[in-house]
């Protein structure tokens, strides 16, 4: 028999409460950021997670769901409000993408690419370009792709001749933000252009068959004598390299954030599985090895998250260490998160290998270690920064 005072009080079992707090990823956030995160988590759980497997297996580009996300403000998260964006910070953005990714990494990653393109036009575009392109991008009436490749071809001003492989969204999107060579050798010869679908000379390669990221189509984007109006240039001629570098910093945080969400979801799946699955007469959660493994996974997840959020803050504040931090965050978080997702799959035993279980999709979506600059390139950037005499 348990006595209680006039009003019954409830207390959540302390261990459960603490674990939930760690896994809510809300620690250290402002009230407002917690609200953003809550909306993103809810949207991910209700609108994305139930379809994640189907989108992957049938290679569906979920236009309607993304437009629903855009209605909530996710189409131009760090684009300025005067052209339809939400005007939030890089940290807010990281929190949002991390939460959305728990519903579908591939779709969220595409949304982050779309956001980056919208931001580029917003930040570097002329008044006309901002007003022409940004509102529709923010509402996702139109979709964008980003084309950055090894500049190798000499081309004439405004006539593009190039083939860019592996463009996310390529062929299905409406706007292509392209970095291309318009001048001499070296970075100063690169400019940034906006090419609209339907421009004569713009065509696409075959849709690639990928291991993961299947809810977004990937095609080569081909320019052959493609005439682009000079007005569609973002920034000055020769400013392209500069714009691309700035874009990459944010892109790296976004990429890292998306994979954080995958790891977050994987840890939760693994934890739930350990509590349910019995072997040798008891639940897997009683195995000390698995307890320790889970602890390591959670620790590395939190460490990754902190680094990514710090990098986001550094970028927002334009700190001198922002570039290095973004590279470090991308390197560390994507490598750690892949290991976390992989471990989570292992903990599921044979079930982890079945497509009925979500954890394998998080593992297959591991391209985050490769794009936005491979993790090997991240090491180049960081070591160069360390070894340069300032």
């Amino acid at each position, binding site marked *: 028999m348990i006595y*209680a005072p006039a*009003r019954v009080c*409830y*207390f959540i079992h302390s261990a459960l*409460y603490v674990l939930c707090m760690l896994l809510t990823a809300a620690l250290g956030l402002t009230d407002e950021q917690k609200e953003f995160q809550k*909306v993103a988590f809810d949207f991910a759980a209700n609108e994305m997670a139930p379809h994640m497997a189907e989108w992957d297996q049938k290679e569906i580009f979920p236009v309607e769901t993304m437009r629903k996300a855009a209605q909530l403000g996710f189409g131009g998260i760090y684009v300025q409000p005067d052209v339809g964006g939400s005007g939030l910070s890089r940290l807010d953005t990281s929190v949002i993408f991390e939460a959305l990714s728990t519903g579908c990494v591939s779709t969220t990653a595409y949304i982050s690419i779309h956001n980056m393109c919208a931001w580029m036009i917003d930040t570097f575009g002329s008044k006309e370009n901002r007003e022409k392109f940004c509102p529709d991008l923010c509402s996702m009436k139109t979709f964008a792709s980003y084309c950055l490749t090894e500049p190798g071809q000499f081309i004439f001003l405004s006539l593009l001749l190039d083939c860019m492989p592996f463009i996310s969204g390529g062929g299905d999107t409406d706007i292509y933000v392209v970095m291309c060579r318009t001048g001499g050798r070296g970075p100063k010869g690169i400019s940034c252009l906006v090419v609209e679908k339907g421009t004569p000379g713009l065509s696409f390669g075959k849709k690639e068959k990928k291991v993961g990221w299947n809810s977004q189509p990937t095609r080569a984007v081909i320019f052959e004598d493609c005439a682009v109006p000079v007005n569609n240039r973002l920034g000055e001629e020769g400013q392209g390299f500069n714009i691309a570098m700035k874009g990459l910093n944010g892109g790296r945080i976004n990429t890292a954030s998306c994979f954080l969400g995958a790891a977050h979801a994987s840890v939760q799946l693994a934890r739930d599985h350990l509590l349910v699955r019995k072997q040798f007469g008891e639940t897997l959660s009683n195995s000390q090895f698995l307890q320790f493994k889970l602890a390591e996974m959670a620790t590395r997840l939190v460490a990754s998250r902190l680094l990514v959020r710090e990098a986001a803050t550094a970028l927002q504040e334009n700190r001198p260490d922002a570039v290095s931090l973004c590279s470090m965050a991308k390197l560390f978080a994507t490598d750690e998160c892949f290991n976390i997702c992989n471990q989570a799959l292992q903990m599921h035993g044979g079930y982890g290998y079945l497509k009925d279980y979500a954890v394998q999709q998080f593992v297959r979506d591991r391209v985050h270690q490769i794009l936005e600059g491979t993790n090997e390139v991240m090491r180049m950037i960081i070591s160069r920064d360390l070894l340069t005499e300032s």
Partner: protein
Amino acid sequence: TMSGRVIVGVKRVIDYAVKVILFCCCNRPIYVLIFYPVVTHLTLCLLANVSQLTPGDCCTRETIRTALAMGADRGIHVEVTGKDYETLGPLQISKILAALAKKEDAQLVILGKQAIDDDCNQTGQMTAALLDWPQGTFASEVTLEGDKIKVVREIDGGLETIKINTPAVVTADLRLNTPRYATLPNIMKAKKKKIASMKPADLGVDLTSRLEVLSVEEPPQRQAGVKVETVADLVAKLKELGRI
């Protein structure tokens, strides 16, 4: 469309999915929000009806902010403390709501039909009685028709449709609506929306409880069953236990 104020009550309770252990004397219960469906096309004014006032108590204000982010225009936080908070029940809440409805000159009060912590299903009805207003409870559909409201109610026998005059009290059933997502811009606008604080005394409400809780106990542990071999054994056992 209707012009006029709508008051929506919000209660913060423990999530149904949480495992709860009874513990005594906890001053800071940890709550998770349950949302009530919100009628979409009316101007809303929001009320939070319970709170324990502790310095820096963010929980209730957080709830109100979330609701403001979902589209409410303004928040009202009625602060109840100490013994009054301990004995707060539907009767006291409905007195507060009735006073607020009069003060705000509301045309409509929308509440949930039944909270998932106490399962009372009383506040809406009591509020309507105190105000002498018509009530449309267990609403799964609400339509404005001029200065009347058509309410489709979910009742045991099926669906009942009634038409009531305004001002009125409506309590929401599950199928009335799907809660909308807060949008990012609305979350930011919510920061600037006002939350007024007041005490029950400001509304002239007496919160004395008519109930005294004598004890709270867990139900008895389920006992193991007994297996018997034959029907004769069963009958004998039942007689032995005095069941027949």
